[in-house]
């Protein structure tokens, strides 16, 4: 019996092997969306727990990574819905490139705030497409939707952002 079949039968050893194999990918995906290391770790653990709970629904011939990523995406979207948009994104302590000095701090904070106030689904699509510059088909697969729908979400996110920033007197250069 192969690893995925053993997993669907509830064998904990098989699940442990899958966790060790995929935890890095799941974490990397979630942290790109929520932009916070601690939250991403918590959501990764929650994702893996839900993966184990839903093991009976997984087809052993399927793509485990893509399935887990979709569960992770849904959890990350739920987190964004619950989290308060007043908080700014935490900054990385080291290794992060310095932002363009022409973009002033206040402007950056306003852009961040406007971005965090986007509806969660639009925010996720815009983060992955515009900030992380991931391929649209990869984003569509994780969101369980079509490439066209992702493009539409990004378009709507940009339109809302542009409108809100324009109201605040900010024009992206």
């Amino acid at each position, binding site marked *: 019996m192969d690893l995925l079949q053993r997993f669907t039968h509830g064998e*904990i050893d098989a699940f*442990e092997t899958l*966790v*060790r194999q995929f*935890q*890095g990918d799941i*974490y*990397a995906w979630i*942290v*790109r969306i929520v*932009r916070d*290391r601690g939250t991403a*770790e918590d959501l*990764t*653990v*929650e994702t*893996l*727990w839900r993966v*184990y709970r839903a093991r009976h629904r997984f087809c052993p011939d399927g793509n485990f990574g893509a399935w887990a990523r979709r569960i992770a995406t849904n959890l990350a979207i739920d987190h964004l819905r619950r989290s308060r948009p007043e908080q700014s*994104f*935490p*900054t*990385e302590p080291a*290794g*992060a*490139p310095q*932002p*363009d000095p022409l*973009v002033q701090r206040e*402007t*950056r*904070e306003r*852009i*961040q705030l406007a*971005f965090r106030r986007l509806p969660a689904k639009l925010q996720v699509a*815009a*983060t992955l497409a*515009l*900030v992380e*510059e991931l391929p649209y088909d990869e984003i569509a697969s994780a969101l369980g939707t079509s490439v066209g729908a992702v493009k539409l979400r*990004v*378009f709507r996110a*940009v339109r809302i*952002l*542009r409108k809100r920033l324009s109201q605040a007197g900010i024009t*992206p*250069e």
Partner: protein
Amino acid sequence: MKEHEDKYMTEHNDREMRDALKQSIPPVNTELRRDLWPDVLRELDARQVGVPWYDWVLVGLSAMMFLAFPRLVLVFAYHL
């Protein structure tokens, strides 16, 4: 021609917004720094749904009662 212009403007606007967002939203380190398996195992143990002991006692008593008085099954079936 109009379609081409619209497409150019949309791409231009997207590029502007992408640049603004990339400058405003700090990059994140996507590398996982610790093994999360112990945390997952803890969650599995904590959320293990077990049948409480008193439910087993209730099932046992019911089984004994039905064995001792088989006609009670009909009474129960009638009231269900």
